């Protein structure tokens, strides 16, 4: 039995399919190489039962994990990029968008929704890494801004689940300004004295780290996530030698003072209830 009931068409699983064996019955952990029955892996929220490796999941799974009875109201589902720069590299950006939309069934790299979590109202913005690497463009900025507006209007805490390589280059300076936009918007949430919980998952880098992801009243991360401003390859090139073991992991970032806690995904729902309770009582 699955830990959550698959409703209707069910949740489009963002991850497992490809990595499973052809029969779709087994999951091979890339970290410890254990072979685990897919159902068991899913029941453990896509966390390796042998070594604790957190497989990347998407908004569908996080919403299912966090919202009570998997009930939530999703916002701005039809917001899409307009390619204002008519950007072309080896391919047209407009074509990349359509391809990505077809491949993922998503409109862009973030989804926003509100519902209840352990009996507390909660508004969530959650990224999907599958959509152009979770990159931040104008759609992401606007959806986050509107989710914050909703939080303020309905007096709910705001949870941001980040999973992104950073800026979306094909939106150039528009992408850059989303860092300013989202950070400015957070000042209004703060003014309203509503809790902002930033949840950093693998990976959280670049402009996302250098804006809202690091601005939580609480900064929380999944174990073993890559978290940094510059990507590890760039840092390695800069210093001209190998990076120390564990560099830019959640544990490293916590030790350097930039995270409050690290939460295992299997305990996320319970921990979130506890945290929301601290703010509510």
């Amino acid at each position, binding site marked *: 039995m699955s830990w959550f009931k698959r409703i209707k068409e069910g949740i489009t699983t963002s991850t497992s399919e490809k990595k499973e064996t052809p029969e779709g019955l087994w999951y091979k952990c890339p970290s410890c190489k254990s072979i685990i029955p897919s159902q068991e892996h899913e029941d453990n929220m896509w966390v390796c039962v042998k070594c604790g490796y957190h497989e990347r999941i998407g908004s569908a799974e996080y919403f299912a994990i966090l919202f009570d009875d998997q009930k939530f109201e999703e916002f701005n589902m039809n917001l899409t990029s307009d390619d204002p720069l008519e950007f072309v590299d080896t391919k047209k950006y407009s074509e990349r968008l359509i391809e990505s939309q077809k491949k993922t069934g998503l409109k862009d790299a973030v989804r926003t929704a509100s519902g209840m979590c352990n009996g507390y109202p909660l508004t969530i913005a959650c990224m999907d890494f599958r959509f152009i690497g979770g990159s931040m463009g104008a759609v992401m900025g606007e959806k986050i801004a509107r989710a914050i507006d909703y939080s303020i209007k309905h007096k709910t805490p705001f949870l941001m689940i980040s999973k992104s390589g950073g800026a979306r280059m094909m939106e150039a300076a528009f992408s850059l300004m989303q860092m300013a936009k989202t950070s400015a918007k957070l000042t209004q949430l703060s003014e309203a004295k509503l809790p902002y919980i930033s949840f950093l998952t693998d990976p959280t880098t670049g402009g996302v780290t250098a804006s809202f992801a690091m601005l939580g009243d609480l900064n929380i991360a999944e174990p073993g996530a890559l978290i940094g401003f510059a990507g590890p390859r760039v840092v390695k090139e800069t210093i001209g030698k190998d990076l120390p073991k564990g*560099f830019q992991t959640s544990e490293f970032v916590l030790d350097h003072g930039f995270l409050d806690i690290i939460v295992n995904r299997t305990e996320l729902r319970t921990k979130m209830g506890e945290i929301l309770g601290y703010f509510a009582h």
Partner: protein
Amino acid sequence: MSNALLDFEKPLEELQDQLTKAKQIQEKGKVNVDSVIKDLESKIEKTRKDLYSNLSAWQRVQLSRHPERPYSLDYINAITDGHFTELFGDRQVKDDKAMIGGFGEINGQTVMFVGQQKGNNTKMRQYRNFGMPNPEGYRKALRLFKLAEKFNKPIVTLIDTPGAYPGLEAEERGQGEAIARNLYEMSILKVPVICIIIGEGASGGALGIGIGDRVLMLENTWYSVISPESCSSILWRNWDNKERAADALKLTAIDMNKLKLIDGIVQEPVGGAHSNPGGMFDTVKAEIIKHLGVLNGLSPEERVKRRIDKFCSMGVYKEG
């Protein structure tokens, strides 16, 4: 007039050589070459004007990095007529030499200046870390912003960076958090904030001191999410497409102004800021005075509201 010519300025080279020769002949005093010299000088001026009337994005990127281009401290010293006291340190870890700041005076009004600083020779370039701040630089900037706010002094930031430093220690000390904090805090500073891109405006490293009531770009500067070279290497997987990347990124002052991502363009002298630094400093000073005049007339609440609304309106998307 500068002698360091960029590749696209090649047509000027021969004319300048001829002019030098003509001047040498004249110094010997045997032949009168006045008219030749006059002729050459006007030809040079016309050629330069033609070259500069139609610069490509990449050519402007080259100009923004011209080795003789004035840097932040040059502007500040000129604009304040030397009435400037540099202030050091972030009060936490160290003083970042890539980020400078301090109190200065313009027309009797105290202004807090903050900017990235590049060096003008090999030794100084290293000392300034090529204008790439560490987290300490952004925290020093924030300390100075707060100091200015406490005593109700306006802020002018001068942006000129190839990016925030992507080093190991920068990561350990929270480069991302340092920039993020500045974006947040600058959004709600109660005093007027004017940001001017005087050279390179590379990504988060530039934006980290770039949230203002007015964001202006000098004519031959660039501002974007990534440099054309890095963009080329990531999207085309080679370094040969930097000119195409420069076009695609729409990173010039003209483009950024058209896209409403900045508030105005500051004209440079023909030949670029370095060809007539004095004229450039006067123009920048006049711009600061003009905008401060308007901003001082607004209440702090109104300024903050307009600043936040402006950045929140940035972004193009389709609905439905």
